[in-house]
């Protein structure tokens, strides 16, 4: 009897993928001088994690570009968000890999170190200086040269359910941590008076690094703390520990329910469902989830209110975390492809590709409820960005602090996530968690050479 097991199939698949990965990486290197692509055309591949609607818009822009630039073909390839980095790792170094990639800024230092993020040519650098805020250009500049076009900017704010606020007789969103705790207590409902919590006052997120760390760090920043100072972690700073203490208190008081907090690989899950279904009174989230809320809530989206991050006892003002995405050109691609890729990006981010003076990129981002970063796009989409949901994020943008993009940043983020979750689930005290995170992050950053 011949039996093929799933383990056998998996082992075969693993072996095959390993061979392909290794072959792809081993063959990596600059194919200098080649034209790339088939039939003499310069074939550019654009790797993104966007959904079907945005991919369709990008394809439309690519078609328009191709009509103006015969000999260049732009192919869009979309992968789920969770697979974007792994796709880049397995295919980025190959000459046949993506020519353009949409990347999270935390990944940039490593991509620059390994030569994957090509430096922008002089005309692109000039374009960036003229059309983007200086701090955002600075964010994509590594080793003295810009490495791509900054695209979306995301930052965090307090989202709350206005209907639940009204039912609890709460007039305004909390401005301080004390008010946050008091408001959360008023919003919390239990079965039969003292039983199981059926409505939590303040929701947190678990099982997703950015979902855990960014809201928590927004509270830390708003208490005058910071995650790192240069490449030195600051997790043992009392201002940082205070935010973790706040989490511990909210959980202890029962106004935050860890069992309502889970996220899955698609960055959806119970944490989102509970807010959408009116089971969570307040949560700290980024502007990009507007489209998910609208889709899930329909008319009830009008119940969602947005407010700045509550300020801690040692903080002076709300200071949410921000992060950005950029489009970079693969430095391992041959020069002709790189040139074509920069040309396409210049078009995609320029005023001629979109509607009413916006770039096509600006149109794509705003269609998802995401803030564009190009100054002209912000003006062109003023009306959409003035809606009650996004306007608070736009107002908070000048006060936002970028998440530190350092070598080892991804591992650092997941180490911090682990210890915050340990506090949320009562496995560590706030002090134990932050002391352990401080040691681990110090080791991670030293090893990564940050």
């Amino acid at each position, binding site marked *: 009897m011949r039996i093929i097991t799933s383990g056998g199939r998996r082992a075969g698949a693993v072996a095959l993928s390993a061979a392909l990965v290794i072959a792809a990486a081993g063959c*990596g290197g600059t194919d200098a001088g080649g034209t790339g692509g088939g039939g003499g055309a310069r074939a550019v591949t654009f790797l993104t994690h966007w959904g079907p609607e945005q991919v369709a818009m990008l394809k439309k822009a690519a078609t328009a570009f191709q009509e103006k630039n015969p000999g260049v073909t732009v192919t869009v390839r979309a992968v789920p968000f969770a697979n974007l980095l792994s796709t880049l790792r397995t295919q980025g*170094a190959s000459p046949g890999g993506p020519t353009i990639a949409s990347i999270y800024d935390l990944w940039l230092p490593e991509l620059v170190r390994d030569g994957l993020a090509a430096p922008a040519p002089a005309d692109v650098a000039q374009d960036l200086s003229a059309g983007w805020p200086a701090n955002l250009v600075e964010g994509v500049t590594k080793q003295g040269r810009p490495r791509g076009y900054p695209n979306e900017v995301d930052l965090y704010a307090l989202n709350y359910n206005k209907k639940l606020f009204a039912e609890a007789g709460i007039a305004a969103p909390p401005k301080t941590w004390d008010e946050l705790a008091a408001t959360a207590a008023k919003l919390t409902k239990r079965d039969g008076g003292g039983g199981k919590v059926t409505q939590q006052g303040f929701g947190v997120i678990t099982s997703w690094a950015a979902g855990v760390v960014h809201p928590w760090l927004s509270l830390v920043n708003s208490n005058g703390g910071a995650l790192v100072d240069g490449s030195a972690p600051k997790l043992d700073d009392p201002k940082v520990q205070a935010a973790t203490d706040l989490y511990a208190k909210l959980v202890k008081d029962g106004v935050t329910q860890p*069992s309502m907090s889970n996220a*899955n690989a698609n960055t959806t899950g119970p944490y989102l469902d509970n807010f959408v279904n009116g089971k969570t009174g307040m949560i700290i989230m980024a502007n990009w989830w507007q489209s998910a809320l609208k889709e899930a809530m329909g008319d009830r989206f009008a119940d969602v209110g947005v407010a700045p991050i509550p300020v801690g006892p040692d903080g002076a003002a709300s200071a949410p975390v921000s992060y950005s995405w950029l489009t970079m050109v693969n430095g391992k691609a041959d020069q002709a492809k790189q040139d074509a890729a920069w040309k396409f990006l210049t078009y995609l981010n320029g005023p001629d590709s979109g509607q009413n003076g916006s770039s096509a990129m600006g149109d794509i981002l705003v269609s998802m409820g995401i803030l564009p970063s190009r100054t002209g796009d912000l003006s062109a989409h003023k009306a959409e960005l003035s809606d009650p949901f996004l306007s608070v994020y736009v107002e908070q943008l000048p006060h936002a602090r970028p998440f530190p993009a350092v070598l080892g940043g991804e591992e650092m983020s997941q180490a911090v996530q682990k210890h915050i979750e340990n506090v949320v689930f009562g496995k560590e005290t706030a002090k134990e968690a932050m002391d352990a995170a401080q040691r681990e992050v110090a080791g991670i950053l030293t090893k990564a050479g940050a």
Partner: protein
Amino acid sequence: MTSPSVTTATAGRGPSARWGRDLAAGHRGAAVVFLSPAMAVIVLFVVVPIGLTFWISLHEWSMYTPLTDMAWRGLANYRELLADRDFFTALRNTLVYVVLVVAVTLPLAVALGMLLYFPKSAAKGVARAVLFSTYVVPTVATAIVWGALYAPDYGPFAQMFSAVGLSAPAWLSEPGTALVSLVVFHVWQMIGYYTILVVAGLTQIPPDLYEAARIDGAGFWRQTVSVTLPLLRRTTIFMTLITVINAIQVFDPVYILTQGGPAESTSVVSFSIQREAFQYGMAGQASAMAFSLLIVLLAIGGLFLAAMRRRS
């Protein structure tokens, strides 16, 4: 008259012996020719990747650069692994997962296999097909569906608990229940496959034995204990091996449903390897984990093979 040994010795030097040797050599040559395509595939897709994985485990490599640019680390990745608490957490979770999966799957598969084999019913075929269907559907699809089933409070499972007045567990949302929830999913998905193995094993048991047992007055339980289970031993040992290997390699549901959380409670070795390689860009460290896992799997496989040989 020559003794047989002398005959053999003489024949060994004669033309017929040369012909025998030529024939044997010819057979060996033919065997090499016939086996070489399969061996080439095995070498290319199994031996070479394993060798390369070990080679990479001795280096530091982000996967963004060619293999030739890897930095040599020697055994440092293995030393760091021994000091890595997260790796040992993943090992512990994997061990718990494997033990639970084996403990639930084996008796359940044997029971279901007997239920599907012994009764004289035309519906047996349909029942087998239905049971096996969970194994055929891709894990990615079923895991997404189970994510919705496991939703706390408002999910179908939680609603079922509420309907009978019970408080539902938090399933994937609590460290105490998340791993067990993944075990339940694994058992549901794989039970059909193992049940079919049991049915295949039962067909190998001669019906005469049951008849003889019945004549001796043995009832169902006596027949099960004295005939069925002893004669299913080889099948159950094989099933245990396959179950252990499958459980150790669990990845898809962890990746899709929990990402190792909450609070690292579902972080298993295969997920840690993926995270180390593809998220942290430390393919050397990840390869050291993968190679260590391979050694563990080989050791377990060896133990089971030895057990099977001893039994037979």
